[in-house]
Structure formats: C-alpha cells, structure tokens
C-alpha cells in the first residue's frame, strides 16, 4: 500500500512538522488554530502534483503553501470579524497570546505585525536565505533586507519597552 516514494515524502514532511507548527503559531498565535492551519496546508501539499516534483526545496515550498493558506483564511475571516465587531462592539479583536511562548522576548514578538513576525521567524529563527524568504512570502528579493531591518528595529523597540515587565506565568 503506497510506494516507497510516498513513504520517503511522508518522512520528509514529518521531519518538517515541528517547524511548520512553529511558523503557523507565529502567524495565528493560538496553538489549536495553528495546528489546524498546518493540517489544511498539509492536505493542500499532499493533494498537489507539485509535491512529486523535486524542484524547489521542500521546506520553502511547504512554508509558502502554509503562508498562502494563512492569507486566504485571514482574508475570508476579516469579513466575518468585521461583522462580529459591528454586532458586538466590545468583542475581542486581539488574538490571545500563545501559551507556549512566555517571557519578554516572546511577548514582544507576539506584539509585532504579522508580516514582521513572518519575516523574523524565517530569517532570524529558521535561518532561511533571503531568496527562500522572498519565495515564501511572494515578495521581491530586494525587499527582504529592508523589511528584515525594519522588523528588527520594531522588535528592539518593543523588547526595550517590555524590560522590567514580569513574565505572565512561571514555567512549570
């Protein structure tokens, strides 16, 4: 049942799973929503014929699929949230902070805009090249570096602003 190639593919995907989950979490900032994003992205990836072709590295292609899916969900969700906001003006508009990430640095990161979070996660945390980053975010390569610099400056400001703020919870 299933070919050797499929088994190998599944192993490769399995190896990338933790980083995909981290990327998803950096985007949606809530663990179950992040896993749902990863699941639907994997469905898209496994249904795609492009998975069989070994052109671009699997990692950047998967991240690109996930990011595209995230944008799509967010686009559709915006209208719904706007409707909710009109019905209940006091409704929560900010996403709950991730339980998995605590401390000043994580808080500062969570406060960044989603574009800044995405680019910092890829370049600083994952160590993607600027080329790969451009491919995932579907932006010109030349715009990666200015965006990285800007994101890091905002992150620095937020981190400094959070100095002296006690952590929300003790790590168990």
């Amino acid at each position, binding site marked *: 049942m299933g070919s050797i190639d499929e088994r190998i593919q599944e192993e490769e995907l399995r190896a990338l799973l933790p*980083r995909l989950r*981290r990327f998803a979490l950096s985007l949606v900032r809530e663990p179950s929503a992040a896993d749902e994003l990863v699941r639907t992205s994997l469905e898209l990836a496994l249904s795609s014929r492009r998975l069989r072709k070994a052109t671009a590295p699997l990692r950047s292609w998967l991240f690109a699929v996930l990011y595209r899916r995230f944008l799509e969900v967010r686009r559709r969700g915006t209208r719904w949230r706007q409707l909710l906001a009109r019905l209940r003006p006091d409704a929560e508009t900010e996403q709950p902070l991730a339980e998995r*990430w605590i401390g000043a640095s994580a808080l500062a990161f969570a406060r960044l805009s989603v574009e800044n979070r995405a680019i910092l996660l890829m370049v600083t*945390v994952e*160590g993607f090249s600027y080329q790969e980053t451009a491919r995932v975010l579907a932006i010109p390569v030349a715009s990666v570096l200015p965006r990285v610099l800007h994101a890091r400056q905002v992150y620095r400001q937020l981190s400094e602003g959070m100095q002296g703020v006690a952590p929300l919870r003790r790590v168990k």
Partner: protein
Amino acid sequence: MSAAPASDEELHAFLDGQLDASRSAEVRRYLDGSPTAAARLTAWRRDAEGLRAALAGIETWPPNPSLDPAVIRRRLRRRAWRRAARALALVMALGLAGVVGWSSRAAYVGPAIKPMEDALDAYRVFARARTHAVEISLPRMSLPSWLAASLGHPVALPDLRAHGFRLLGARLLATSEGAAAMVLYEADNGRRLSFYLRPARHFIPGTQGWREKEGLRVRYWYRGGFGFALVGSADDAHTVATLRAFPSAL
C-alpha cells in the same frame, strides 16, 4: 587599512550570512576597525539569539497525531474514493433512467458524419477501376436523362471539358436518404474526377467547403436538399484547380 563603512542594511545582511564573500570580508575588516559598529552588530546579534531562544523548544511540544502526513494522505484518499463512488452512483442512476429513452436511437451511434464522406468512399471504391467503374457509359444513352429517370429529378451536370475532363459515365448508388449518383470524368493523363450527388437533409443549404483525406480531395456544397461533391486526387494540381472552380462555375 580601513574598509568602506557598512550601512545598517549591510550589517544585517552580514549577520544573516547573506553577503557575498568579498563584501563580507570587507565588512569584517570594517568592523575590526570600528568598535562602535562592532558594538551595534553585537547588539543586533544578541536580539537575534534572544528571539531564537524564546521561540525554541518545538521538539517538546505535544505531538498532534492528526498532523501525521501518512494519516492525512489516507484521509484524503478515503475522501477521494467516497467522492468518486458518489459520482459513479449518480452516473449510473442517470444512465439507468436514460436507457429507456435512448434505446430507440441506439441504431444511430458513432461519430458525426462528415460532409460527403460517401462521395469519397464512392470514388475510392469505383473511380479508379479499369472496368465497371461506371454502369452507364456514353454514348449509348443520354446521361442526363438517365440520371433524371434514375434519381427522379433533373440533374445539372458540370461541364468539365473546359478543364480537360471528358465524361465517362455514371453509376447509381444507394444511401439511407435515397438514390445517389457518381458521374465519372477522365483527363488525358488518366486522372479521374467524380461528380457525386445525393439527397441530403442533415446539412443546411449553403453549407460548403472542401476536405482532404487519404490523398483525395473533395469539394462539396449543399443546395435545395441535395449534397454535391467533386472528388479527385489531392496531389494532382490540375484536379485541385478544377475543384476550386466549383460550384461557382455551375
């Protein structure tokens, strides 16, 4: 020897290892010669390490079995099978419902009829035969009156003498819509050309055109409930020129 100062952007690119080797070496030299720039870089590096540490620990996250690629693939396949089964059931239901309505037209199956295909067939079968290409030949009978009598209606035969083709004779043929006739002509070089006519109710009057198939060329037109065609060798320039002259020459 101090290198050119590096911009902020270049420092970050250097930090990310995204500078090419030569510029990277230059930046390193610049940093060696500028403590303030080196301090700035160290600060950025510390921020980066802090962020990496804050977002680390992914291996310790509780695994989620519904994310396993093999599980997802199996689920996708099951979904696809169910979808295909539903579609098949629908097709069969429609098919079963349609059989009663279709059985009376079951005799008419097959590809759509191409215009004057039978003209091509008639030429292929009869036209090049040395004997019995035609069943009625001149000068025994007046061909037009024979044709009119056989087909039940008058026929205007093309005069191909100006094109160098002389009349040989005719053959009566059968079609599902009634009698058809193939009139054969021959040029001095032995090339033969046929004029084919038959009742044709399926084509709108005014339809016309030409086709080539297996070395034969047919020029056809439909008028007054009849189809007409001239058939000859596609590789004979004289034949092709003659064909082109019709039906305007009629």
